[in-house]
């Protein structure tokens, strides 16, 4: 039987990104030269993320009408649920693994993403800490 993944709970976890990032000064430091506006899809729920000098300048939940973005990272609810487990299973443990298996799509101009790949991977993995805190 397919598992049920609650998009709204996952989106609520993602909305905590500003606090989670503010608690990680080393990640902020590593993003010092990163400025971008990008979209993150948590299942069918889109988020508009603006990062300035490695800090979250704004995080807004969609839907949006005619919102511009440089790149987008759109994952299924299952992908985010499994990526954010305290110890993710093999094949669900990394953004590139999710892309390879087809449960996450990268869209748009990937240059800012690739130039800051570790930062973005670590940023998008931050909600895992909420699950670690729960344990």
């Amino acid at each position, binding site marked *: 039987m397919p598992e049920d993944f609650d998009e709204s709970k996952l989106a609520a976890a993602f909305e905590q990104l500003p606090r989670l990032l503010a608690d990680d000064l080393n990640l902020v430091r590593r993003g010092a030269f990163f400025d971008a506006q990008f979209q993150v899809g948590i299942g069918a729920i889109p988020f508009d993320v603006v990062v300035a000098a490695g800090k979250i300048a704004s995080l807004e939940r969609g839907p949006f009408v005619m919102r511009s973005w440089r790149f987008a990272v759109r994952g299924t609810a299952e992908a985010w649920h499994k990526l954010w487990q305290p110890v993710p299973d*093999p094949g669900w443990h990394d953004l*590139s693994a999710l*892309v390879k298996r087809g449960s996450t799509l990268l869209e748009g101009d990937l*240059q800012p993403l690739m*130039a800051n*790949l570790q930062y973005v991977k670590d940023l998008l993995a931050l909600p895992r800490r909420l699950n670690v805190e729960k344990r």
Partner: protein
Amino acid sequence: MMAATLEPIVGRYVTLQLGGRSHRVYFEEAGQGIPLVCLHTAGADGRQFRHLMVDDEVTSHFRILTFDMPWHGKSLPPQGWEKEEYRLTTAGYTEMIVAFCRALELDRPVVMGCSIGGRIVLSLAIEHASLFRALIGLEAADFQSPWYDTTWLNRPDVHGGEVCAALVSGLIAPQSPEETRHETLWMYKQGGPGVFKGDLYFYRVDGDLRGKVGAIDTNTCPLYLLTGEYDFSCSPDDTSRTAEKIKGAEVTIMREVGHFPMSENPRQFRRYILPVLEKIRTTP
């Protein structure tokens, strides 16, 4: 005054003629006994095996040797490198390994390679089995599906070292210790421009062994394949699919390990590799 703590690893340089050109190749060795030549992954260098090289249980029976491929680590590119694009080929890689073993007069060495090193081990098993006592492929398969576009690895608007490390970081298991995880990534951050990309030419274009591995005769040379469960580049399924076509190949799937077993989690790796080395040592 306290005595300095010296590791048993010794490094030297050897000059090899490869593709008709002279190459100054750096290698390290430790231990004594059966020669065990270790081949590093694409875009990295021989330091990946430094933990194995100070493991008394291995070095008491094996003479471990690891060389930095030309263009990698402390081995320089050949003279005139600035006028060409680096590309590793099956023929060039094979020539390099055979030339290194001959130059050091190694008698039927064991060769253990990881990733591209695991792929070339399969090629050695097809073409040169009689030269080796045993072959070990870590994260090895006859072919793997690409999971990123290699043009991102060498272009002026993306830092090469950072993007190489960021891509391969996901191939490390979440259980691997922070210290060895980041040591593994450091080598990728240090690679020369375009070198990782050039190695992947062999991996993705020139070294496709699909349809060829069935010719491997494990009676001539035993073949061991070990793959980490968190490796999504060369997955356990890729290795198992390959091994199904090779009669007598022994497969081990390593738990809580990714694509760089010897460097990302040396403690976990030795649990799996020690029994293999013991078997090789005690088999006449």
